[in-house]
């Protein structure tokens, strides 16, 4: 097995006996966009603090960029970029000063630093804002500045702890646009935490955590496949005839609703052409509903991500 960019084996952390992370084993491949998805207090920030050497694990092992976080924390720190959950820009300095400060801490030479500061600012759309005091920037721009700062020393792994926390949907979309742009331009492993489901959908690989344990770990598509099937919502000229045809020719069971037929299939994309071929009645509309990650989380924890427990699955 190729060691991933991040590899942990039953990593644990307790705070004065309170167990925040209880034995997490992960394998994040190099170049992946990895999402660590969990509700408040699940242990996401604790996990990031351990992987970035700011917190000593109570047990287990963690390799980041091939290096054990306990053996050589300094080398790990050199190879990672980190954006904290809470804002950590210096609001009394300008954008450029914040970036230059960071560049020097990472040992970049003056010339190199100037070039990379410009590059990083460009990547997050802050070009031309160099001399703006950070205090006067909007929340999303400050976040983008932090991301730019985390990228300045060209780390192999970038940790983002809830990069869009506290931002409105428009600002969130903006951050994500820049993250996608980043993946496009650089080969980098991104480890991000979130409790937004739609953000997890953008990841190549997600792990769902709850109370310090991983409850599911796979690609978003695979996780959703695991819990269920796609649903096709059909509206036809004659629902009864359509249902009979689908059952006879394709062996598909369907359910009647007041507004049409519901058919469960494993993969809607391949099923729809067949459905259209066999049906002899007029088809007014076809709609596909895919299972959501929220349902996956609910299945494994009995709760939804925002903490509410929903007794029944609506399907």
């Amino acid at each position, binding site marked *: 097995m190729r060691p991933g960019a991040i590899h942990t084996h039953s990593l644990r952390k307790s705070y004065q006996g309170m167990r925040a992370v209880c034995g997490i084993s992960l394998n994040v491949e190099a170049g992946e966009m990895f999402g660590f998805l969990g509700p408040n207090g699940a242990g996401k920030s604790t996990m990031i603090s351990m992987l970035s050497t700011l917190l*000593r694990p109570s047990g287990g092992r963690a390799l980041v960029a091939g290096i054990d976080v306990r053996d050589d924390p300094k080398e790990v720190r050199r190879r*990672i970029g*980190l954006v904290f959950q*809470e804002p950590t820009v210096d609001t009394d*300095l300008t954008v450029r*000063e914040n970036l230059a400060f960071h560049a020097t801490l*990472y*040992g970049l030479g003056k010339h190199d630093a100037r070039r990379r500061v410009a590059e990083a600012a460009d990547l997050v759309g802050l070009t031309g804002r160099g001399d703006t005091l950070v205090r006067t920037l909007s929340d999303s721009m400050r976040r983008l500045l932090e991301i730019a700062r985390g990228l300045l020393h060209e780390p192999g792994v970038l940790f983002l702890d809830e990069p869009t926390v506290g931002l409105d949907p428009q600002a969130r979309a903006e951050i994500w646009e820049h993250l996608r742009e980043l993946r496009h331009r650089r080969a980098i492993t991104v480890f991000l935490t979130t409790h937004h489901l739609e953000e997890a959908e953008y990841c190549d690989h997600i792990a769902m955590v709850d109370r310090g344990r991983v409850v599911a770990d796979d690609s978003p598509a695979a996780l959703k496949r695991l819990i269920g099937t796609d649903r096709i919502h059909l509206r036809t000229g004659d629902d009864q005839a359509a249902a009979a045809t689908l059952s006879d020719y394709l062996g598909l069971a369907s359910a009647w609703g007041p507004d049409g037929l519901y058919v469960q299939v494993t993969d809607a994309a391949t099923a729809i052409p067949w459905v259209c071929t066999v049906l002899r009645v007029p088809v007014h509309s076809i709609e596909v509903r895919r299972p959501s990650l929220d349902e996956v989380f609910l299945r494994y924890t009995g709760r939804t991500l925002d903490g509410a427990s929903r007794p029944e699955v609506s399907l």
Partner: protein
Amino acid sequence: MTVDARPSVWSRLLRRLWWETRAAHVVWQRELLHYARNPARLIMTLAQPVVYLLVLGTGLGAMLPGGGGYPTYLFPGVLLMTVQAPAIAIGASVAVDREAGFLREMLVAPVHRVSLLAGRCAGAATVATCQGVLVLGLAGLAHIPYAPELMLALIAEMALIAFAMTAFVALLAVVISPTPTFHAALGCVLTPLVFLSGALFPIAGLPVWLTALMVANPLTYVIDLLRRTIAPYLARPEPAAVHSPVLMELAVTAGVGLLSVLLAARRLSRPR
């Protein structure tokens, strides 16, 4: 002929040292920028020692029998308060940064904690010394001559004292958490130390236990150091509270500063 492609231990060490020095330098620069961008803070921290000198020095001096010399007596204490204000503010900002997160941003960088702390203390020392120079301008009010050698010596001493105090306060900030506890501890330690240092009044005829506290108080030596630097330039030198060698006093101040930096760095580099 063989060429060793690997850089030698010495050149690696030198590069490392250069890296750390530059890191300390930007941290220093950041402190200066903060002060430069908040002129209100500068004025407020300057106001206190000036008020002490004018109000306490002249007011109290007029009440005391033969109190004409009181402003002179008070002057080392005024200098101490001048450097103390920014030293405490910047040392304590370690606690603020820890909570706000900027400290974590620095700690996750691959630099030695000693560089980060030393840069910060040097920043505080610079700010404090600049303010000290302004207050030195009032030396005439305390009947202290503006002799160039005296002024230079006082400036150097203030820089050293500010560095050591910042380091000590930063050590407290790193060791004592949460932040409100730290601020309470700071207030409850520093005020008695100033009163017991002989900065405001000569300490004589105290009960034994207070005298013991005075002898153990590092500020006593700091005040004594300043006082004895000034004494040779005065027409009527004051009797000193303690008589320890000036060199020892300098060494103790520098030692407290260095030790604090090292201990605080150790504490910071140990992940919780």
